[in-house]
């Protein structure tokens, strides 16, 4: 069977549904609704129309020769520009599909978790567009470091709940969103933002994000006459990475690289390199790699990037790592921030800190590959939201300055 044909609930030994019984009916309903929608041409034409005229798809493919030169890369480097999408990242691709599905199953309220705020902003956007009530759960640490996105969600009419439990980041936001869903499942659909969680989320979110790689595959063929030698993407939960990998899974000549958040270094306790340093276990409804202690208690992750600051990862990535089809490596905070600065100054493109991890990975591949090779990078989001973090990191903001 082709690797692209895996539909869950299991990806090799990974995946499944480790959830309270109260959620099973809702997950079954979603699974059936998604199967039904996938087979319905009317669903696809409505989604395609939105992706075309609302999101601005297909997203561009930009070659970055000045960046290539600045980092001394032998292979040519191409960016898949998900940062140019409406709302500023790949997250909108998934959310519009799930919002249409929410309408199909007749629910009027949506909830979402968010780390960096990009999925929350995308969900708040879709809720505004479709007239749905929207509550977004976000760790308190993240509401502080991504304050601009909190304001965007509120402006769009969503309620943002700052989660104060546990590590006060994405993991705890998911816990609270699941508690809300268990309680309000009759009226509420959970728009999950990544390829983790219980079935059908890993397969459904993947199906909605695979457009990224399908477009990029065609664009690379048209631009260079060949498939890329390597594809690079950042991996937190893993939705942009699966999105760009998926079209290439059955192209054995294309090497796939996921770059995890190495934080302050994978030999310190402060990182989010789940596949690199974790082991299989169950978190948030799925069996996958996980950062955990000996007992199985989840270990708090760390990354300068809120969107990668998650101790779990999607089960399809666990499977791709286990089978060797994709390779996963860690990139430190410092490497990512260097890559962010270099792309900004060499090409005039400010990437999200998440996406900067993929760029840092591409810089390493630039030393390993040759001049005839090409590297396709998922530029999953733009860096506007990260100006507070970047401003502090690079000391760009004048002390005492206020915006007039």
């Amino acid at each position, binding site marked *: 069977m082709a690797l692209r044909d895996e539909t869950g609930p299991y990806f090799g030994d990974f995946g*499944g*549904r*480790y*959830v*309270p*019984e*109260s959620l*099973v*009916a*809702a997950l*079954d309903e979603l699974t059936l609704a998604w199967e039904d929608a996938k087979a319905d041409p009317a669903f696809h034409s409505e989604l395609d129309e939105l992706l075309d005229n609302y999101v601005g798809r297909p997203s561009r493919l930009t070659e970055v020769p000045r960046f290539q030169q600045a980092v001394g890369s032998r292979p040519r480097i191409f960016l898949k520009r998900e940062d140019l999408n409406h709302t500023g990242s790949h997250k909108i691709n998934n959310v519009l599909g799930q919002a249409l599905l929410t309408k199909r199953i007749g629910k009027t309220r949506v909830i979402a978790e968010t780390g960096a705020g990009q999925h929350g902003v995308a969900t708040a956007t879709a809720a505004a567009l479709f007239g749905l009530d929207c509550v977004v759960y976000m760790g308190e640490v993240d509401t502080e470091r991504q304050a601009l996105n909190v304001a965007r969600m509120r402006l769009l009419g969503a309620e943002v709940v700052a989660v104060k*439990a*546990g590590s006060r980041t994405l*993991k*705890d936001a998911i*816990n609270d969103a*699941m*508690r809300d869903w*268990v*309680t*309000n*499942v*009759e009226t509420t659909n959970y728009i999950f933002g990544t390829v983790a969680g219980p079935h059908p989320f890993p397969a459904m979110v993947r199906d909605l994000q695979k457009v990224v790689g399908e477009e990029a595959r065609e664009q690379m063929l048209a631009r260079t006459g060949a498939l890329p030698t390597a594809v690079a993407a950042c991996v937190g939960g893993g939705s942009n990475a699966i999105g760009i990998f998926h079209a290439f899974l059955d192209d054995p000549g294309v090497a796939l690289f996921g770059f995890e958040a190495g934080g302050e270094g994978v030999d310190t306790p402060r990182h989010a390199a789940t596949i690199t340093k974790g082991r299989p*276990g*169950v*978190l*948030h*409804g799925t069996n996958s790699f*996980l950062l*955990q202690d*000996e*007992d*199985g*208690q*989840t270990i708090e992750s760390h990354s300068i990037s809120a969107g990668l600051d998650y101790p779990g990862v999607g089960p399809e990535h666990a499977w791709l790592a286990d089978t060797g089809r994709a390779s996963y490596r860690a990139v430190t905070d410092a490497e990512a921030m260097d890559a962010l600065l270099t792309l900004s100054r060499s090409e005039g493109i400010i990437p999200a800190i998440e996406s900067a991890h993929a760029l840092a990975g591409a810089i390493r591949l630039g030393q390993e590959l040759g001049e005839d090779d090409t590297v396709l990078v998922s530029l999953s989001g733009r860096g506007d939201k990260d100006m507070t973090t970047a401003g502090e990191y690079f000391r760009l903001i004048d002390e005492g300055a206020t915006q007039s």
Partner: protein
Amino acid sequence: MTGVSERIIQRNADAAGALIGYLPVGFPDLDRSVDAAVAIAESGVDVIELGIPYSDPVMDGPVIQAATQRALNAGFHVSDTFEAIRRITAQVDVPVLVMTYWNLVRQRGVDRFADELLESGGSGLITPDLIPDEAGDWLAASERTGLDRVFLAAPSSTDARLDTVVSESRGFVYTVSTMGITGARSDVDSAARTLVGRLRAHGVENACVGLGISTAEQVAQVLEYADGAIVGSALVSALERGVDEVARVAAELATGTARTS
């Protein structure tokens, strides 16, 4: 040692039904969690549900989350659970079921966990995030050891799922009273009565209702149609005020098990 099902059946013969009390192990510390479990058993709680603190308890409301987080912060280890069970069952004749999120069992090894549980005198597991569909290893280990396995039934469960839950559960079926998480509620949903009726139609041996029960009056109400009433957050809140207080609240709750007619 009396088994869970045996105790529930006996309490339905002698009284209106069984009172099942939840407490987290290691809260406020290991010694006092043992003392508290012994105290509630001596005050009329028929079956102990001992919760293992977990970092990501998605079925738990704020009271139990705060208690288990405190236990974790104080250095709780899963192995403490078995010591607690040994100490509780040495002092009182009460069946002790362990309530645990699945990853903690999985990381210890399902067979090893089952062996240690059996050896310590525990009766079985309540698994809030393990549905029978994913429970192959646990079904095998519980068959081998004879441990009870309590699965959950929810108002939203289909008849086909209730059938599976009833046939795979042993001890009792944890009947989720309402769609939601743990925590006191002023009214226990009429959904519970309906769900117990459906479980009876599927031939359930013991249906015990939990989530939201916090008063003796609610215990009595639930025992009109169910075989047991499960109380958690109300006991945990009481334990925050001391072992004597949790014993007092347990005794008060136990008045709800008296036969009214």
